[in-house]
């Protein structure tokens, strides 16, 4: 079934396949799997200190708690809610058990020989606790009234978040990749990312501002319709001011870096270089899957349902496109008072060049270069160069403001110097 635009079922199929792959990826990197898996992993943690194997075990079950079925979201909302709630219930029970365990451990192993083991176990328990909390928060978010959109949970860079629920604000748990089980757990700065934003989170540092051209001109690349995944975010998600959320206090941040800075205030474990480091893109064994985005606005040619669908390349593209095309323009240029923009970055770019055209024709057109003005005048009858009225008497300096054309010719420069001296003599 290879149609122009992947049909809905194909899409879901792809989603499922992707997610399975991701979960397999998770074996390598973070020990905290997707929500559904981790829910079970909580039980398994108790028996086996090695988190990763648990996940593996669980994965081999290949079981999913019916959350994948929620891809057919429109019909299954109540069921999703129910499963979320039951999941939450389980989690809370886990939490209780763990705390009991902790109390138990504290009570018993205070002898010197056992201390090492106790410490280890304490580490593990703390880790489990943290993971459970993270999952709780994200799942709770998912319970908020949601629109029927399918949400992708792509976190290329090895972060997990295979969350098939359509979250409202896109609260996806994507914990940091952990290296080594016994190493410091404290560098886990889990944060809430907008689903899909995780991927773009890395690129935020560099390309926070994407120009319009990248959004529109897709001519350089042609992707056959089946070779890429199409993901669609909701309007609220696109327009959300904050994409990263602190798991501890819930404060929102636009950038991953800002969030990490904020996390320092929540404890020493967030002040380590590893916690503060930019989460790098980890090499995945799976070749990079191409993702393209669809605009949620119906009728837009960037919408996947449009006949001439042209996908957008990244989350930032989606955001910029949506704001530029489907939102009203609220920022006005402070210089010319005429141009309006919906994206702040566009306004800044305009203001950089606003008013730079100095060459003015009598018809009112401004030009950035003199030769352009003269070319324009040559074409039309009756147009003359317009001389600004506030022109002050320029100094009779010979060498000022010569056109770059003469001055650029090096061979003539020497002659020009010679000639200048003549001018001073006779001029």
């Amino acid at each position, binding site marked *: 079934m290879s149609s122009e635009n992947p049909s809905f079922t194909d899409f879901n199929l792809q989603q499922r396949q992707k997610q399975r792959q991701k979960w397999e990826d998770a074996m390598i990197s973070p020990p905290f799997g997707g929500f559904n898996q981790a829910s079970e992993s909580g039980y398994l943690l108790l028996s086996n200190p090695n988190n990763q194997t648990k996940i593996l075990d669980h994965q081999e079950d290949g079981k999913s708690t019916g959350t994948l079925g929620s891809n057919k979201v429109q019909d299954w909302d109540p069921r999703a809610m129910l499963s979320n709630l039951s999941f939450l219930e389980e989690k809370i029970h886990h939490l209780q058990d763990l705390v009991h365990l902790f109390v138990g451990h504290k009570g018993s192993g205070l002898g010197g020989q056992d201390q090492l083991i106790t410490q280890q176990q304490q580490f593990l328990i703390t880790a489990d606790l943290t993971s459970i909390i993270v999952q709780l928060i994200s799942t709770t978010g998912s319970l908020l009234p949601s629109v029927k959109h399918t949400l992708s949970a792509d976190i290329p860079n090895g972060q997990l978040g295979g969350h098939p629920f359509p979250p409202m604000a896109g609260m996806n748990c994507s914990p940091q990749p952990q290296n080594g089980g016994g190493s410091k757990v404290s560098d886990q700065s889990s944060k809430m990312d907008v689903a899909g934003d995780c991927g773009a989170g890395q690129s935020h540092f560099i390309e926070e501002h994407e120009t319009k051209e990248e959004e529109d001109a897709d001519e350089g690349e042609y992707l056959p319709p089946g070779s890429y995944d199409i993901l669609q975010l909701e309007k609220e998600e696109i327009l959300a001011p904050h994409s990263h959320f602190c798991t501890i206090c819930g404060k929102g941040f636009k950038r991953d870096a800002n969030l990490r800075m904020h996390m320092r205030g929540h404890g020493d474990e967030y002040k380590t270089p590893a916690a503060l480091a930019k989460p790098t893109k980890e090499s995945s064994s799976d070749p990079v899957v191409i993702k393209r985005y669809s605009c949620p606005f119906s009728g837009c040619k960037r919408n996947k349902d449009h006949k001439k669908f042209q996908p957008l390349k990244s989350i930032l593209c989606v955001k910029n496109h949506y704001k530029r095309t489907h939102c009203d323009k609220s920022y006005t240029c402070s210089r010319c008072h005429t141009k309006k923009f919906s994206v702040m970055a566009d306004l800044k770019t305009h203001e950089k060049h606003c008013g730079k055209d100095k060459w003015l024709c009598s018809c009112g057109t401004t030009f950035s270069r003199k030769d352009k003005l*003269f070319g324009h005048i*040559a074409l039309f009858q*009756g147009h*003359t160069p317009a001389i600004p009225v506030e*022109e002050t*008497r*320029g100094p009779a300096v010979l060498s000022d403001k010569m056109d770059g*054309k*003469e001055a650029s010719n090096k061979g003539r420069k020497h002659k020009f110097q010679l000639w200048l001296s003549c001018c001073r003599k006779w001029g």
Partner: protein
Amino acid sequence: MKTNKKTTSNCNPFDFLTEEIIFTILDYLNDDPFSKKSFSLTCKALYSIESHHRKTLKPLRAELLSRTLHRYPHIEHLDLTLCPRIEDSMLNVVSLACKDALCSINLSRSRFFTNIGLSSLVSSCFNLVEIDLSNGVELNDLAAAAIAEAKNLEKLWLSRCKLITDMGIGCVAVGCRKLRLICLKWCLKVSDLGLQLLALKCKEIRSLDLSYLQITEKCLPSILQLQHLEDLVLEGCLGIDDDALSTLQQSCKSLKTLNMSHCHNHSHVGLSSLINGAENLRELTLAYGPAITEDLAKCLHTFSGLRSVKFDGCLVKCSGVRAIARWPHSLKELSFSKCSGVEDDSLSFLVQAHKELTKLDITCCRKITYDSVDSITSSCRSLTSVRMESCSLVPKEAFVLFGQRCELIEELDVTDTKIDDEGLKSISRCSKLSSLKLGICLNIADDGLKHIGSSCSKLKELDLYRFCLNFQCLHSSSTMFKP
């Protein structure tokens, strides 16, 4: 038309004279300002006739301009070169008084007017055809934009208007479509762009002076495509060199006069590329330019209309002079002023080939001796102007030949030569002599001057720098000299 009607029975003869007739009479008095003044003071009728007749005015005082223009309402040519201070208010007066009669105005020696005055001038005097704004160092683009309003303008001089830029020239180009002559000498801020626009918009240009502008070859294609261009001056355009000129493909068929003085960046290659196709070329001035070599002379071989060449200050090669001698067309004017390398043999050869020379300038050709003068005077019988200042090797006997052979001479410059009284006596036979320069001639005395004074009745200019004057000589010849 007012004539005095006398109450007596006598018929007033002046009644038969119409105004046109009196105007014609007054035209004959144009050379004699005092006669005209007397005429106007005769009576009121003649006063008013004379005041309507006068067409040119050259006032000495600008303050009296309003009263003067009130008296003379039909002034067509206003020459304000004697008034150094002309302000906007005075230009306003001129514009209101002359209105559409004014055709030409000369403000080349005046300052303190701005674009406001020019604007008022141009708005009232819409028949203005010539404006001379040379030396307007304070005039800027706004002034040029004001000039652009003169739609009938044909001649515009903007020499030394250093503040005018391409923008101003662009305005002029678009506004003055009938422009025929434009002089942009020393307008340093004008560049290729402005000139391209000028050449594009003003198709009637006949005379273009681009001396000392910082232009390159980029403007030349459009300039050469002017259909009526006759006179092109590219003096001191150092931005144009051989390589640049060799890229030219256009040719200007109408070109008659070319001046490329003070351009040492090009050689005959560039020159030939520039004048390629200019069949009507008549005058060529290459002062202080490339060396006059055989190649250069050869590339001028084909221009059958060439009559006047000026090679002042160039390095002249004998082979070049001989090649000039081989030109099929006969030169009328030739100048080797201050050239090094002019020698007897080659010069003699040349003048024998160009027998129709009328003007010859061999100032500072220090190698010239008797033989050259002999050849010159024997071959070129119709010489009217000879300049041989500082030809110090020419002996005094040579000057006798001028009087003997070249009787049509009108101008003779023998400053700093060995001419003596015998020579002067001989020269006095040239009855048409009007200008004689005898500065630093140590061998002349009163005798020679007496002869000159008595015979040369048309003499107007006499230069006797460093001559020891004897009063007796003056007395005897003073009656022959007119003031």
